[in-house]
């Protein structure tokens, strides 16, 4: 059944109020429902918090189409990119098997139920030959499940081609996190670990770095198989003639810094048990502004006020993030999904 009603676009109010309104309008006060809407791309997206509710209202043009489903018999896989066009494609299946292949009975509707497993990030700032992969170890029992080894790779230097020592992925454990993402493969060269270049570091050092970052590991690799690379629009691909370019573009220190700050995860909180009570996460101390010195360490204090929790659909995509992405006009829907998957954090 359909209902039509109006909302004030400038003052949409809270999601709770909206939810109550819907229940009222449909006269279903005690039924749990899932709320969805179609965005400008024709994707069915959920509305379940203030943010995506506001987003939905602000993008309504002028009509906001809302779908309401009873929670018990909701089709969770209906949500997501391209869901309205129903054009399922192979690549997104490969890249995000969890979204589609997973048993459909798992309840993944509410945002707290979503948990990212991996993502490709910073596609916009990396050369096309590189891939920056983020593995979310937190909370899973799945092992990271990969091995690295020493090796040598060929670099382009001002003095011509040069053989340099490098670190490579040597083995993926079947069923491990690394393998299940499909984003890493044997013989991929590891270039960076959480933003730190590994060149000049020993295998043991890189091992220690990876293990130290294992709760939120971001590895930049040069995939051994370069055929699955992202092909950007004409402007970017015009420069892809330098696909052998090996060193990372140094042009984006601030973006990298942003990215690094975002990586200082708050999910790595230590646990305290006071007086043999219940374990709880250790909070961050409130920044004190007593002295100038305490200001200089601000970067350590607020490593991340923002919890980089972004499920792999664009419901949390905010405006400034969108503006970053705008630089590249997205044409191919496949690649759009890759790009928008990125964790983009503003400060």
């Amino acid at each position, binding site marked *: 059944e359909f209902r039509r009603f109006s909302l004030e676009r400038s003052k949409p109010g809270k999601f709770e109020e909206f939810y109550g309104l819907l229940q009222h309008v449909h006269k279903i006060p005690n039924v749990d429902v899932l709320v969805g809407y179609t965005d400008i791309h024709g994707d069915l997206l959920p509305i379940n918090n203030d943010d995506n509710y506001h987003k939905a209202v602000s993008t309504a043009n002028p009509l906001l189409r809302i779908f309401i489903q009873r929670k018990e018999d909701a089709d969770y896989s209906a949500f997501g990119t391209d869901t309205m066009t129903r054009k399922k494609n192979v690549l997104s299946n490969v890249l995000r098997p969890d979204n589609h292949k997973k048993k459909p009975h798992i309840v993944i509707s509410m945002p707290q139920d979503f948990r990212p497993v991996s993502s490709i990030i910073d596609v916009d700032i990396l050369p096309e030959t590189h891939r920056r992969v983020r593995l979310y170890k937190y909370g899973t029992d799945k*092992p990271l499940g990969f091995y690295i080894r020493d090796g040598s790779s060929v670099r382009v230097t001002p003095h011509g081609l040069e053989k340099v020592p490098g670190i490579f992925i040597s083995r993926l454990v079947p069923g491990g996190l690394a393998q299940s993402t499909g984003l890493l493969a044997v013989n991929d060269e590891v270039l960076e670990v959480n933003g730190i270049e590994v060149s000049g570091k020993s295998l043991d050092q890189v091992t220690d770095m990876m293990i130290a970052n294992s709760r939120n590991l971001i590895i930049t690799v040069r995939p051994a198989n370069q055929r699955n690379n992202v092909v950007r629009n004409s402007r970017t691909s015009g420069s892809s003639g330098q696909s052998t370019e090996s060193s990372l573009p140094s042009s984006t220190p601030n973006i990298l810094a942003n990215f690094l700050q975002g990586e200082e995860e708050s999910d790595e909180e230590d646990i305290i048990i*006071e007086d043999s009570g219940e374990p709880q996460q250790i909070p961050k101390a409130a920044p004190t502004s007593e002295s100038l010195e305490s200001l200089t360490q601000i970067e350590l204090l607020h490593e991340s006020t923002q919890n980089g929790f972004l499920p792999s659909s664009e419901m949390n995509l905010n405006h400034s993030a969108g503006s970053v992405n705008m630089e590249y006009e997205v044409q191919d829907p496949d690649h759009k999904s890759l790009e928008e998957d990125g964790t983009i954090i503003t400060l």
Partner: protein
Amino acid sequence: MRRFLRPGHDPVRERLKRDLFQFNKTVEHGFPHQPSALGYSPFLRLMAIGTRSGAIKLYGAPGVEFMGLHEENNTVMQIHFIPDQCQLVTLLDDNSLHLWSLKQHSGASELREEQRFTLKGPPGSPPSATQITAVLPHSSREVLYLGTESGNIFVVELPSFRVLEDRTITSEAVLQRVPEDYCNRRSCELVEALREHPKNPDQILIGYSRGLIVLWDLQNNKVTHHFLGSQQLENLYWQRDGSKFISCHYDGSYTQWPVSSDNRQPEPLENLVPYGPFPCKAISKIYWQTTKNGLPYIIFQGGMPRASYGDRHSISVVHGSQQTAFDFTSRVIDFFIIFSSEPTAEFDDPSAMVVLAEEELVVIDLKTAGWPAVHPPYLASLHCSAITCSHHVSNIPLKLWERIISAGSKQNIHYSNMPWPIDGGTNVAPDPPQRDLLLTGHEDGTVRFWDASGVCLHLLYKLSTVRVFLTDADPNDNMNTLGEDEWPPLRKVGTFDPYSDDPRLGIQKIYLCKYSGYLAVAGTAGQVLVMELDDEDAEHVVDHAEADLLQDQEGYRWKGHEKLKTRDGPVRFEAGFQPFVLVQCQPPAVVTSLALHSEWKLVAFGTSHGFGLFDHQQKRLVFVKCTLHPSDQLALEGPLSRVKSLKKSLRQSFRRIRRSRVSSRKRQGISRNASEVQEANAKYDQDALQEMELAPVQRKIEARSAEDSFTGFVRTLYFADTFLRDSSRHCPSLWAGTNGGTVYAFCLRIPPAERRMDEPVRAEQAKEIQLMHRAPVVGILVLDGRSTPLPEPLEVAHDLSKSPDMQGSHQLLVVSEEQFKVFTLPKVSSKLKLKLTALEGCRVRKVMVANFGSCKTDDYSENDLTVLTNLGDIQIISLPFLKLQIRYPCIRKEDVSGIASCVFTKYGQGFYLISPSEFERFSLSTKWLVEPRCIVDVPEVTSNNHVHKSGIENAVRKS
């Protein structure tokens, strides 16, 4: 944008850093690893030691030390001082000669390499033609005589190393007038020894290996005397007046030869095999020393009966009816005798014998009856039993210092009172800024107390914990008790004894409170001893307690070593540190951490199973805490099973490979398709091969989990008086950090002093912090309201520290192998952190708070963390903001034992083992720097008194 203000770019701070920090490796303490050569200059009274790695080290009076390193890193074969010069020549095993000299430079002497030279024969000649076997620096100081394998003696000019070809002494020239029958029997062979005549510098004695000895006249270039020895020659020695010389031989004999103008081919005066009649080993070096009373000292190396004592490393001293064969603990590299070098003196009158053995330096006083050993002020054999741990205590109060010295002096009564005979050079280094002790724990259950204040690491006192326990070895079993009529008259000398009777006795942790004189030591079998310094001998019972760290954990079996058995009844202890309490951990695993609070009279100890707190005043166990994860079987079973399990897993993996092959063969019977089977076989082989090939070079990337092994291993224990429960009341607390990244905090209630013996000490767990990165916790520290680390126990009571600020809020610093984290107290919230491993890929191995003073102003000092990483780098990290200040490469990252042995001091210095027997000392501070600074003066006599020149030179001629 603030984050773009990179730390460390503040110019004021940068300037201050330069005034505070500076990295220097200052001096090597201990005994050189693998010594290979010894030299002595009676003129400079300096001794030189060369090593197999190409180092040469010069030693004189205590504090006078020089070190040089040959670029080639080749073994030093011989060292010869140039008579009356501050110069020496070294011969390496690549046949190169190096000239070193001591030159004064800005108020201190320095050892520098001046020249190098390799003797070259005519083109086409075999390498043996120029292979140098003997070196004689002539007393004219102008030439070196170089004996070679070919039998020729080359003459080179100093310091240019120009070969004076016309002065070469060829074997043909020597053989010209040798009797036919002798000459036919043997050719010259290599030059074994070259000795200048003590009175006549124009004559040199040449000894060839086959036994022929000739006296050569340098003026007329001819042989004056032939001495037709029949035994293979080892060495030669002139008597002081030049009328006789002595030769020693391969068959264990020595021969005296007269030198007179009337007989050009004399017969030997005396031929003796001192330890005959059965076949003896070679006598490789001999001295003949004359004395006023007429009886000479005959001192020779080796010569022992081959069959029964051929394995001994001996030097025999014969003086009239007295004869002793000093039996050394390791191979004798070389030795020399210190004797009167006065040119006018008529007799040698030897005073001391200096012996360089492979593992230690032994000096024997030849003047005192019984020939006692002299206690060397340096070159201590740190490794006389392997070092298992070390502990440094800075700034020892004078009182304690004197008591330790007095306890040590009672142990040294068997040493000679002779002043140190090698006393050349002047130490001009400023007095050490403070009294520092370095305590080393050893495998044999001893703790050695070293004076580490200055350049000479000197043994003050040795403590043994063995007495408390019953061991297989009977302590009364004295190897030295030999009967009076024992032959040969062997006497063991030296302290090197690397063989431990019982590895469980090994010392693992040491903690000394310098204010109270309490000492806690803990060992391999879970033993913890608390000791008190007593100036008198005493006999008392050691109180004994057991700490069951497994508590209610059941069903586990310890498969490691048993605990040590204790002695019943009172035990006699000599003056010094005497144990009064023994706590034995159960299971008796190695003690991995130890803390002592002398004010509260508490000792805390931890093993791989948990930790405990013991009240050593009431002699009562306060509590134990098991830190084991239930699944950690390895820790439970002990170290032995760990090895076993590794073996087991290896065996299993081989079995797996074999099984896979077997199963493929089985299939052979079923499927008759041979090619298919072959393929399968090949595949299995390939898989196995691939696994093996990859194994050594690949590393597994896996997050640590709570189930990992040895997570319960207690790495650090710390006492602090801080705000644990609320911000209004502070209380004593005990902190423990484990291998699995857990920090436990216990609140302690200690009765007031007047009721200290009546009420029990109580403890209650107040906090447990689990670091999510689960890296081992290696350090815990509480900073007071001024962000200063809390003072040591009793430090405030002794007015040596300001009392801590209890007004402002305290902070907790937890150092794991991967991160530094500061938390607030009493409510634990994380304040800031430094993720070392995530950024640099290195891990913290050692960490210590050090106080750095400015070299510019006396009134500025600050506390920083000194950190050693697994890559061997030292980093200084500021407190409390955890900013990296500076980084220095210090130890090679491959040198795992060096990194493991490193110990920091409280004032920015440190020590680490560069070999089992040597500590390298380094300094990070601009203010506290202990390094040798010394002057070696050339005595005036040589430059002004040319008239007496030859006489003096003869007298001081290097033997």
